[in-house]
């Protein structure tokens, strides 16, 4: 069976894509654990399903509703769950100097 090797660098690359930080200690524990999980999903990578093409969406959809303007949630309510807001907007630290 064709086994995928997981390196620390690969895990660091994935952490970047995932917007997650790991300490060196966490990484050390994560790499072998992740390798075991990848070994599980490797069963799909290594299975033979012939040359099938993805033909359709797997589930039936009921179609879109009419494109009619409807009332949205009020701005003040939307902002209630944000950790920081200012003058009706989401607030983040300065991006440009």
């Amino acid at each position, binding site marked *: 069976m064709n086994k995928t090797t997981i390196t620390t660098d690969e895990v660091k690359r994935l952490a970047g*894509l995932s917007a997650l930080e790991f300490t060196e200690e966490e990484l050390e524990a994560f790499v072998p654990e992740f390798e075991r999980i990848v070994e*599980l999903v490797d069963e799909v990578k290594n299975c033979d*399903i012939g040359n*099938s093409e993805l033909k359709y969406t797997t589930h039936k959809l009921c179609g879109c509703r009419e494109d009619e303007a409807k009332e949205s949630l009020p701005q003040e*309510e939307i902002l209630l*769950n944000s950790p920081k807001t200012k003058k009706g907007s*989401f607030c983040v630290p300065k991006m440009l100097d």
Partner: protein
Amino acid sequence: MKIDELSLIELAEKISKQELTSFEVTKFYIDKCNEHSDLFALLEIFEDSLDRAKEMDEKIKAGFKGKLAGVPVVIKDNILYKGKKASCSSKFLENYVAQYNSTVVQKMLDEGAVIFARANMDEFAMGSSTENSAFGVTKNALDPTRVPGGSSGGSACAVGAGLTPVALGTDTGGSIRQPSSYNGVVGIKPTYGRVSRYGVVAFASSIEQVGPITKNVKDNAYMLEVLAGNSIHDETSLKEEVPNYLSYIKGDISKLRVGVLKEIDEAVKGLEVEKSYKNAIKFLKENGAEIVVTSIPSFNLTLPCYYIIAPAEATSNLGRFDGVKYSRRSKDAKDVDEIYFKSRSEGFGKEVKRRIMLGNFVLSSGYFDAYYNKAKKLQQKLIEEGKKAFATCDVIVLPTTAGEAFKIGAKDGDPVSMYKEDLFTIMANILGVPAISIPFGKGPNGLPLGLQIVADRLNEGTIYNVADFIESKGGEYARL
């Protein structure tokens, strides 16, 4: 008769006929929840529940009719109820307050329900034991040293311990059925699209469904009728008419073709569930059903297929938790990148991080075709195999889990072993077909085991007929 000895249907009838008030029933359950708070099934009992119950009593007096008029209901913590917290048992959403009602909540409120509490769960529904909740571990309703299963562990425990007549769960890979099995209750994952997911925090959108967890099969059928149906807010919710599921319960299975999968013959050997699974087949045969050996040749690939598709969708769905719009932001974040990285690293638990990483792995450049694309093709193949299997039989029976509930902490540090908890349940999610778990048989410690009954798309009625037959007539075998 004591209130918690009444079924959901009996309770609804008595409240409607004003033989019981919603207030006394709701108060009874709230008091019982408080008495059993050590189970940690619930994260919060809503403060205004008794006011809502009083309001329902007034409405009932004034002539209000509804299937759930005045009936108390528990929801899983990932289902939005306007003005109430919905934290997904995550520190990230600890203070998130729902701004609108999910379709399922709205449907229950329209029928007069008193939604009185939210139940603990594995964080973002990722897990099989409710040990991944950021707020504490729920105990099994029948043995507090064991897990209640997951991810809808709080909901199933609450029903199993008699803390509510009904609870809602969500099921992405077995998250209603496995905990139902572990707590000795009945839980269904409906056909994909049968129940709208609008207002349910998304984990793996293409395979998950909301479903009811109840004490018995008839209650479950009654409840699904309330929940099912199209929503204009959810393109994947089906427009097919919602049947009266109770009308399918006929007390007769004599012309039924029951499929058994040859692929699981080897898998069940030596498992705690082997005897009860075989007894179930024996019971169905003795009662006139025809047993058909059928096949889903790629069955053994359903588990790894799921662990590609579900994390891939999860990683996209959880991308919205960026520390800007929802709830939590790291106090140490000094720039925008740090808001993302630090908020997510502090806010998400271990298992959620694992799945996000796995999702990004199978979707990332160089791996996308080998994993994600291949898994979607495999899912397509499995759906075709499922269609062929259901052409030979009306239902397929298989175990819900390998055995009875395991001890709290028994699978710590072994995520793959935890993932394998869903070995028998994932098939229904990958195929998009309905599947129920009902209590059937006992494990070595006298704890309940579950039997799954799976049918083709939209055949929940057939499932309920078979499940009710087994529940009402299979007593002798079910006790073994």
